[in-house]
C-alpha cells in the first residue's frame, strides 16, 4: 500500500498523475473516432509532425505546447487539404508530410548545441517532467478537445459511419473531417510530454481497439476505452516511478498488455478460448 501512497506525497508525482488521467481520457475519446475511421497512420504522422514545433518553442523559450499545437494542427490540416485537392492517396500524402516535418524537427534538434535532455524527453516521454504551468496549459487544451467532442459527438459519429448519408442529409462532412483532424492534433499535443512523440499513436489507438473487441455499442466502446486509457496511464506512471524507466514506454506497455489480455480472453471470442465457443458465437451472429 505504501508503494501506492508514498509517491502521492510529492507534488511532482501529483502533477504527473493528473496528466496521466488527462492523457488517458482525451486520447481514448478522440482515439475512438480515429480507430473507427482508420486514421491510425494519420495519428502517428501528426505526432511526429509536432516535433519541429516543440524544438522551435524550446529555442524561443516559449511553452512547448504552443509550438507543438501550431506544427501538429498545421500538418493535420495540410494532410486533409492535399488529399482532397490532389489525386494522391491519403497514405502517400501522410508519408511525405510526416517524414518531412519530422526531419525538420531532427535537423533543428541536432543544430542546438549543448544539453538537450528536455527535448529528448519529448521523443520518448517523461511524464514526471511536466511543470505546473505546462500542466495548466494541457488541462485547458484537453478541456477544449473534450468540449468539442461533447458538442459534436453525434455529427462525428454519423459522418464516420455513413459519410454519404450524413452529407446528403445536410451534415458538413468535409468540415467535420477537418475538425476531427484538428482534435487529433490537439490530443497529441496534450499527450507528447507524457508518452513521447514516437509512442503517442499507441495511446490513441490501443485503448479503443481493446474496447472494440468487447462491445458493439459506440457509447460503451468510448467508455471502456477511457477506462483502459486511464488505467494504462496511471499504472504506467507508477511503473515508471518505481522502476525509474521512461514513462512513455511503461504506459504504452501497460495499455498493450491490456489489449493483448482482451484479445486472448475476451468473452466475445478471444483467441485463446476453446474453438467450439468461438464457432457458436459466429453462428449466433
Amino acid at each position: 500500500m505504501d508503494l501506492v501512497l508514498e509517491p502521492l506525497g510529492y507534488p511532482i508525482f501529483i502533477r504527473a498523475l493528473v496528466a496521466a488521467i488527462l492523457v488517458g481520457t482525451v486520447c481514448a475519446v478522440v482515439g475512438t473516432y480515429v480507430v473507427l475511421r482508420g486514421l491510425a497512420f494519420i495519428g502517428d504522422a501528426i505526432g511526429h509532425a509536432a516535433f519541429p514545433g516543440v524544438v522551435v518553442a524550446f529555442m524561443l523559450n516559449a511553452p512547448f505546447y504552443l509550438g507543438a499545437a501550431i506544427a501538429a494542427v498545421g500538418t493535420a490540416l495540410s494532410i486533409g487539404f492535399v488529399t482532397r485537392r490532389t489525386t494522391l492517396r491519403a497514405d502517400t500524402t501522410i508519408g511525405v508530410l510526416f517524414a518531412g516535418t519530422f526531419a525538420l524537427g531532427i535537423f533543428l534538434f541536432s543544430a542546438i548545441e549543448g544539453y538537450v535532455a528536455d527535448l529528448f524527453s519529448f521523443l520518448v516521454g517523461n511524464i514526471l517532467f511536466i511543470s505546473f504551468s505546462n500542466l495548466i496549459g494541457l488541462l485547458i487544451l484537453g478541456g477544449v478537445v473534450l468540449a468539442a467532442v461533447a458538442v459534436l459527438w453525434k455529427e462525428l459519429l454519423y459522418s464516420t459511419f455513413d459519410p454519404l448519408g450524413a452529407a446528403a442529409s445536410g451534415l458538413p462532412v468535409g468540415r467535420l473531417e477537418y475538425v476531427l483532424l484538428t482534435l487529433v492534433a490537439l490530443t497529441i499535443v496534450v499527450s507528447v510530454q507524457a508518452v513521447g512523440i514516437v509512442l503517442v499513436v499507441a495511446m490513441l489507438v490501443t485503448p479503443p481497439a481493446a474496447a472494440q473487441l468487447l462491445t458493439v455499442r459506440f457509447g460503451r466502446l468510448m467508455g471502456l476505452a477511457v477506462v483502459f486509457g486511464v488505467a494504462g496511464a496511471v499504472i504506467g506512471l507508477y511503473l515508471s516511478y518505481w522502476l525509474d524507466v521512461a514513462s512513455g514506454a511503461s504506459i504504452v506497455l501497460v495499455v498493450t498488455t491490456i489489449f493483448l489480455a482482451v484479445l486472448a480472453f475476451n468473452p466475445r471470442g478471444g483467441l485463446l478460448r476453446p474453438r467450439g465457443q468461438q464457432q457458436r458465437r459466429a453462428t449466433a451472429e
Partner: protein
Amino acid sequence: MTFAPAAPADTHVLSAAAMAVALSNVAAGYHDRVALEDVSLDVRPGSLLAIVGPNGAGKSTLLKVIAGLVPAWSGSVSVLGAAPGSAAERIAYVPQAELVDWHFPITVSGVVMMGRYPRLGLARRPGKADREAVREALASVGMLEHADRQIGALSGGQRRRVFLARAVAADAELFLLDEPVTGVDAATQEDIMGILAANASAGRTIIATTHDLACAAQCFRRVVAINRTIVADGPAEIALDPDILARAYSGHLLVLGGNRVVLDDAHHHDESASERHFHDNGG
C-alpha cells in the same frame, strides 16, 4: 421543360418548383471524367422510380447529383423546390451496401437514430420524441424486435430494411437509394419493394438505382434507362423492351427467350454469392 425521348409517365405538366426533382440539361462527373451529360428529368412527388443501366452508365452519379453529393457542372438542378443541398434535411440517401462498414460498433436502433441527428442540431441529445420516432420507423419495416442487435449481425435484407427505417425516422420526403435490392433473394426483394411502395403511396418520392431489370419492370412505376445520358424514360414495362435495352446496354445484353442476361455485371453475382453464404449461417 424538356422531355426525354420516350414519353414520361407523368402526363400533367407541373412547374419545376412543384416537382420533387427537376433536372434540366445536367452534366456532371469526377475530376476530368464525364459521367453524365445532357440529363433532363422531372419526378413528381409520390413517384416510385427506378434508374437502370449498365455498370459505369452513371446511375450512382445521377443519384448523387440529386442528393447534392456531386455538383452539376452545368444545367439546372432543383430538388424539393430548392437548389441541391438546400433541402438536405428532407432528403434521405442510402449508400450501396458494400460501402458500409458492417463491423461498426452500432446497434440497429443507433443507425435509425442517425436519421434524427440532422434535425436535432448541435449539442442536442436525442429525446423521448426521437426514440419514439425510431421505434415507429423500425416497426414500419418489421425490424422492431432486432432494435438492440449490432447492425452487422443482421442478414443482407434486414440491413437494408434498417437503412429504410433510418429514412423513415428522418421524416424524409425524398428517398434516394443506391442499389437497394442488389444481392438479396426474391422474397427479401419483395419485402423491400413493399416498404418502398407503401412510402410512395404515403406521398414520399422514391428514386432507386438497380441492376435488376425484372425488378425494375415489376416493382417500380416508372423506369429511367441511362447510359451517360437518358436513353429511355417511361412506364416500368420499358425495362423489358428489347430495343430500349439494346440502346441502354449497347450490345452487352443477351436476350435468351424471356430471360435477360446482362453480361457486364459480374460484381452483382459476387455479392449474391456472399449473401447466400450469410443466410446459410442462420443470420
